[in-house]
Structure formats: structure tokens, C-alpha cells
């Protein structure tokens, strides 16, 4: 921080650094607006697109934890996303994600009493935020 005393700040001509910082900031703000314009124009107008994957299955003290990740590759954010998992033996488990934003990923776990084999994951419902 520059603390040099300036006796007449009102009449002081702007330091060149002020213009450089100003120009850099202006470029940054323009880039921000430009980025938003580009994403707005290229955005598809469809519903959220979900991709689910089982990351790993762990044995916990209170059953088996199937760690899952849910990715929304669409351009719309989904809220209260209900994901259901059913293993080969017919045992089901459910999880609700508060928000799955566009282009983002959320993780969680489904619990099963026995080791889940042949796990099938389906997204059952969501709301618009």
C-alpha cells in the first residue's frame, strides 16, 4: 500500500498506475459480460440432463455404503432431485439432492443392508428451483 503523503490530492493528476488498474478492471468486467453473453447464446433450452455413477462400495458399521455421484450436464439447474438405487436382489434405497446446478456434480451415498450387486440408479423426480 502506498502511503506517501500528498499535500493537494484534489489537484493531483492521476498516477499512470491508476489508468493501468482501471483498464485491467474494465477488461475484466467486459470479459465477464462477454462470457455470460456467450453462454446465454449457446445454451440449449432443454431440461436438466443427469448422469449417475457408482464411485465405490464400502462396508460400514451400519451396512454397505454405495458412494454415488450425480452430474447435471444440462443447462438448467434441478432442485430436490430424487435418486433411487435398486440392487439385483430387489433392495432399494433413496437419496434426495437439494440442488444439482447446471454443469455441476453432487455426491452422496445410498445405504444397503447387504452388499449391493448389479446396482441400478434412476433419477425419479426433480423440481425447478
Amino acid at each position, binding site marked *: 500500500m502506498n502511503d506517501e503523503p500528498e499535500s493537494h490530492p484534489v489537484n493531483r493528476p492521476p498516477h499512470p498506475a491508476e489508468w493501468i488498474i482501471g483498464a485491467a478492471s474494465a477488461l475484466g468486467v467486459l470479459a465477464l459480460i462477454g462470457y455470460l453473453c456467450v453462454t446465454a447464446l449457446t445454451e440449449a433450452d432443454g431440461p436438466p440432463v443427469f448422469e449417475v455413477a457408482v464411485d465405490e462400495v464400502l462396508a460400514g458399521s451400519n451396512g454397505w455404503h454405495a458412494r454415488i455421484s450425480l452430474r447435471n450436464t444440462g443447462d438448467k439447474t434441478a432442485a430436490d432431485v430424487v435418486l433411487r438405487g435398486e440392487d439385483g436382489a430387489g433392495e432399494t434405497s433413496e437419496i434426495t439432492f437439494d440442488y444439482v446446478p447446471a454443469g455441476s456434480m453432487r*455426491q452422496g451415498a445410498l445405504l444397503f443392508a447387504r452388499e449391493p450387486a448389479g446396482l441400478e440408479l434412476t433419477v425419479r423426480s426433480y423440481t425447478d*428451483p
Partner: protein
Amino acid sequence: MLMTMEMWQLAYTMDAWRLAVLVAVAVPLLVGLSHVIGIEDRRNLADSSMDAFFALGIAAFTSAVVLTMLGVLAPGMSADEIAGKIAIQSVPAAIGALLARSQLGDADDDALDEREETYGGELFLMAVGALFLGFNLAPTEEMILISYQMSEWHAIALIAISIAAMHGFVFAVEFKGGSELSEETPWWSALLRFTLPGYAIAALISLFLLWVFGRTDGLGLEMIVMAVVVLAFPSAIGAAAARLIL
């Protein structure tokens, strides 16, 4: 902020090392703030540092007392949780403590009125204002929820309004007098030298706060940008108001 639920939850949802980064950033900022608003004739680093740590200590003590009184701190909580809850409140509380002293303290001792206004000092004050107001809002669920509800066009309009509001404050500072801006300064000069850098600072501080509070985790680039634009609105107002008030 002591009465905001998200601030208590952050104590156990937030990474310990992000909390450490926050405190590490806050300490030099408090030293700088106490230097800028400190008492003129004893402006040296040692005194400013002492003031900053004193403010931090008072803030931690006050936070501990108030949180206990509100039942947020209770027996049976882990030491980690209690320390986290106090630490996270202490940062804004310490900024508040320093600002309160500069506003409410003895006017004769106040260096602010005759404070030399340097460009760096002005940008620094804007950063403090953005951090103070942004800190109040960054942890809340609403910031993220709003960014989900908005389209990109809404975001662009919000950027324009944030910058326009900031520019209004820049002119208010000019009327208050003692500012760098003389009568002949064209409007675009102030826009380029104060308003836009101020907005850039507010946006960067918003990004930092969202990251510290874990709000950017797992988010795509587009959603991070949207959340930053949402939080930059109050932060920008805070940044501009800081120059007017201080």
C-alpha cells in the same frame, strides 16, 4: 451474523485449512485497516498490529460470550466445533470493532478526517467494505439459490446495476469533498479509475468468500460466475459505501 444459522453450520462443514486461510488473510487486512484508520501520530506497524490483534481478541471474546448466551455453544460440543464457531465469527466482528472505534471514537483522535487519500488506500478501503458486507451474505443459502434462478441476461443486468450503484457512491464521495476528483474530472475518468477497479475488487473478494465457505465445490464454471455476480452486488455496495463512510 451471530444469529445466522449458516455461520454456525460452517464451523463443522468447512475445511479446517480454508478456515486457516481465512484467518491468515484477515490478519494482514486488519493490520492494514487499523493502519489506515488509526490515530495519526502513532501510525507504525507495531502499533497497528497491536490494534489489529486487540480487535481480534475482543471479537473472539465477544463472539464466545454472545454465542454461549444464545445457546449456540453448549456443553457436549467438540473443541473443534466450538473453536470453529468462534473463529469464523471473529473475523467480521474484528472488522466491525475497528470500524466502530473509528466511527464512535473521540473525534479529536480520529485521523480519518485529515487522512491523506492515496489511490492504494482507497482501493484497500473498498476491499474492506466488500469483505465486510460480503461476509454477511456469502454463507447464506440465498446467494446460491438466487444464482440458480437467474438467467445469464439477469446476471448481465445485475452487473450493470452494481456498477451504476457504485458509481453513484463515487459521486457522493466527490460531493462530500476532500476526494481526488476535481470539478473538471470527466465522468469516465472516475468510472475507469474508481468504479471499475472497485467492482473488480468486489467480484474477486466474492469469489474468495464463496470458495472459503465451500460454496464453489462441485460447481461448474458458469454457475461459479453466476454466484460471483450475485454476491458481487452487495459486496460492490459495501465497497463503495466504505469510501463514503470512512
